[in-house]
C-alpha cells in the first residue's frame, strides 16, 4: 500500500474514533464515580438529533452543539435520578435510556420533518467546517478531553474524591463529602461528553441526522472503556484502534489481499466485540471495573 493510502486510512480512523472517544470518556467519568452507564448509545443519539435540529433551525453549528449537549445532559440526569436518587437498577435505566432515545428521535424527527426520521440536510454555517488539517473544531475538543480527563481525575482533589466514590462511597461519605453530589457531577460531565460526540456525528461528520445514526457506536465505546481499563490515555488508544479497524474494514471492502484473499468485512467488524469478551474473560490481562460501580449508595447501613 502506498503512503497516501496509509495517510488516508489514518485520517478516516481519526474521524471514526472521535464519537467513540467522546462516549468512552463519558462512560469513564460516570463509571469511575460508580454509576454504570450502558445508555451512552442513547445519549449520543438524542444529542445527534437535537444538534442537527437546532443547527438547522438557527443556522448555527454552535447552537446545535449547545442543544446536543443539553439533550444528552437531560437524559443523563434521568439516568442519574433513577440510579443515584432512586437507587434503581442502573442497567435497567440504561436500557430504558437507549430505547427512549431510539423511539423519540425517530418519532419526533418524522413528525417535524416528514423525511422518514431524517433532518433536512445541513450546509454552510449549520455544520462544523474544517479548521486545521481537514478536521473540525469538535475533533480537537474531544482530543483535548483526554489529557483533561487524565489530569482532573488523576491530579486534582476533585478527581481523587470522584474516584474514591466509585471505589468506596462509604469512606467518602464519612469524610463529609456528598456522594450524591459527586455522582451527579460525574453523570453531567458524561452527558456533556456524549453530547459533543453525538453533535460531531450529525453536525460535524455528516450533514444532518439519520435514523439510528449511532448504529452501536455507544456500545463499541463501552467495549473500548473496558479495553482501556477505565483510564483516559488507554481510552484514546482503544478508541483509535477500534476506529482504525473500522477504517480498514471500509477500505478492504471487495479488495482481495495477496496471499489471504478477500477478508470479510464482518470479521473485522466483529473484532472489537470479540476482543472485549476475551479481555473480560481474563485470558489476556484482566479488566477490573471500579469496585462500587453499579451499586447504589445507601447511607444508613
Amino acid at each position, binding site marked *: 500500500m502506498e503512503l497516501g493510502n496509509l495517510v488516508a486510512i489514518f485520517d478516516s480512523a481519526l474521524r471514526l474514533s472521535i464519537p467513540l472517544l467522546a462516549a468512552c470518556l463519558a462512560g469513564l467519568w460516570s463509571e469511575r464515580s460508580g454509576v454504570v452507564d450502558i445508555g451512552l448509545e442513547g445519549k449520543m443519539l438524542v444529542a445527534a438529533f437535537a444538534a442537527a435540529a437546532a443547527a438547522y433551525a438557527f443556522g448555527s453549528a454552535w447552537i446545535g452543539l449547545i442543544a446536543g449537549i443539553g439533550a444528552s445532559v437531560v437524559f443523563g440526569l434521568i439516568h442519574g435520578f433513577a440510579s443515584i436518587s432512586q437507587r434503581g437498577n442502573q442497567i*435497567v435505566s440504561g436500557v430504558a435510556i437507549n430505547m427512549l432515545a431510539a423511539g423519540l428521535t425517530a418519532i419526533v424527527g*418524522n413528525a417535524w420533518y416528514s423525511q422518514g426520521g431524517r433532518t433536512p440536510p445541513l450546509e454552510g454555517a449549520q455544520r462544523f467546517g474544517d479548521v486545521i488539517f481537514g478536521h473540525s473544531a469538535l475533533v480537537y475538543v474531544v482530543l483535548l478531553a483526554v489529557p483533561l480527563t487524565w489530569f482532573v481525575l488523576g491530579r486534582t482533589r476533585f478527581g481523587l474524591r470522584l474516584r474514591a466514590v466509585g471505589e468506596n462511597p462509604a469512606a467518602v461519605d464519612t469524610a463529609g463529602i456528598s456522594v450524591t453530589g459527586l455522582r451527579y457531577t460525574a453523570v453531567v460531565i458524561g452527558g456533556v461528553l456524549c453530547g459533543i460526540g453525538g453533535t460531531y456525528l450529525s453536525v460535524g461528520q455528516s450533514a444532518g441526522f439519520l435514523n439510528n445514526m449511532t448504529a452501536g457506536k455507544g456500545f463499541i465505546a463501552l467495549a473500548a472503556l473496558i479495553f482501556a481499563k477505565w483510564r483516559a490515555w488507554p481510552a484514546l488508544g482503544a478508541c483509535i484502534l477500534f476506529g482504525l479497524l473500522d477504517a480498514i474494514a471500509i477500505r478492504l471492502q471487495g479488495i482481495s489481499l495477496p496471499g489471504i484473499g478477500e477478508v470479510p468485512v464482518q470479521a473485522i467488524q466483529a473484532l472489537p466485540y*470479540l476482543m472485549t469478551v476475551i479481555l473480560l474473560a481474563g485470558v489476556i490481562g484482566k479488566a477490573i471495573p471500579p469496585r462500587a460501580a453499579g451499586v447504589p449508595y445507601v447511607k444508613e447501613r
Partner: protein
Amino acid sequence: MSAPLDLPKWADTVLVPAISVVAAFLVAGLVVLGIGENPLSATRYLIQGSLGTGEGLGFTLFYMTDFIFVGLAVAVAYHAGLFNIGGEGQATLAGLGIALVLNNLTFLPGFLLIPLGILGAAAFGAAWAAVPGYLQAKRGSHIVITTIMFNWLASVLIVYLLVNVLREPQSMNPETRAFPEAANIPFMHDVFAAFGIEIPASQLNLTLVLALAASYFVWLLIYRSRLGYAIRVVGSNPTAAVYAGISPARIIVIAMVISGALAGGLAVNELMGYQHRLLLEFTSGYGFVGIAVALMGRAHPVGIILASLLFGILYQGGAELAFEQPAITRDMVVVIGGIIILFAGALDGLFRRAVAHLFTRQKLARV
C-alpha cells in the same frame, strides 16, 4: 432504606406495576400531544386496530407470542440474579439453528421436522447464552457486557452468513431459500378451518400454544421444582446458596441455558410460523421489549402473559395507528417500552414508596 416497605402482596404484584404502566401511558400521551396529535383518538385507533377486528386480534396474539418467549427468557435469568439482555442475539442464533436443521433435513416428514426445528432453535439460543453464562460463572466477566457484545457478534455473524454462505445464488436478498413446506407451523386460521370454524386470516400460528406451554413450564420450574428453588436462592443470596450446598456457578450456567432456549421461541414464531425462511433482522428489537415485559410482569409467568398481551396490543394497534395518524409511527411503541422499563424497572422504588406511604397512613388512621 430506612424502614422495610410493608406492602400487602396484591399491592406489590398488581398495584405498583399497574401504576407504572398508567404513568408510562400518561407520559406517552404527552409525547403524542408534543408532536401535535390527539392522544385520545390515537388510543381509540390503537385499541380498535388491535382488538376491534378478528384479524387485528390475530396479529395482536402473534406479537404476544413473541413477547411471551423473550419475557420468559429475561425472567428465568432474572430469578438467578442475572441480567440477560442478549435476547436479540440468542433469538438470532436460534433462527440460524432453525435454518440449518430445516434446510438440511428436507427429506424428513413434518411431524419430525417441526420438533427438530424447534429443538434446533432452543439448542442454538441456549448455546449463545451459555457462553456469557459460563464466562460470568467461571471467569467473573459481567454478564450484561458479554451479552451486549454477543448481540453485536450475532448480528455481524448472521449478516456474514446470509450474504456469503446461506444465500440462494440467484437471489439478491440476504435470506435463505424457503424452508420445506412440511416444516411450516400451521396458521391458526388453517387449524380452525380444519375443524370447520372460520376465523379471519392472520400471522397467528400454533406457536402461541407452545408459548403458553412454555409459560406453564417456567412456572413449574421456578416455583415448584428443586432446580427453580436453587435458581431463586442463587438469585437472592449466592452466599447462602453456597452454604446450602448449591453451586452458584452451575446454576448460573443452567439458568442462562434455559433463558437462551426460551429466547429461541421468538425465532420459532417468526420464522417457522410466519416468514418460512431465515432473513436479516427478524428479531426487530423484540429482545429488548422482553426486558420491559419481564419487569412489568414481575418475572412471573402470569404477569408476563398479561404484559405480553399489552405489548401485542401496542405493536398491532401501533401499526394501525401509524396508518390512520401517520405522524405517530410505530416507534411510539419503542418509546412506550422505554418509559415502562424506566418506570417499572429503574424507578420502581418511586411508586413503591408512594404506595407504602399511603398504606402506612391508612394503618395509622385506623389505630
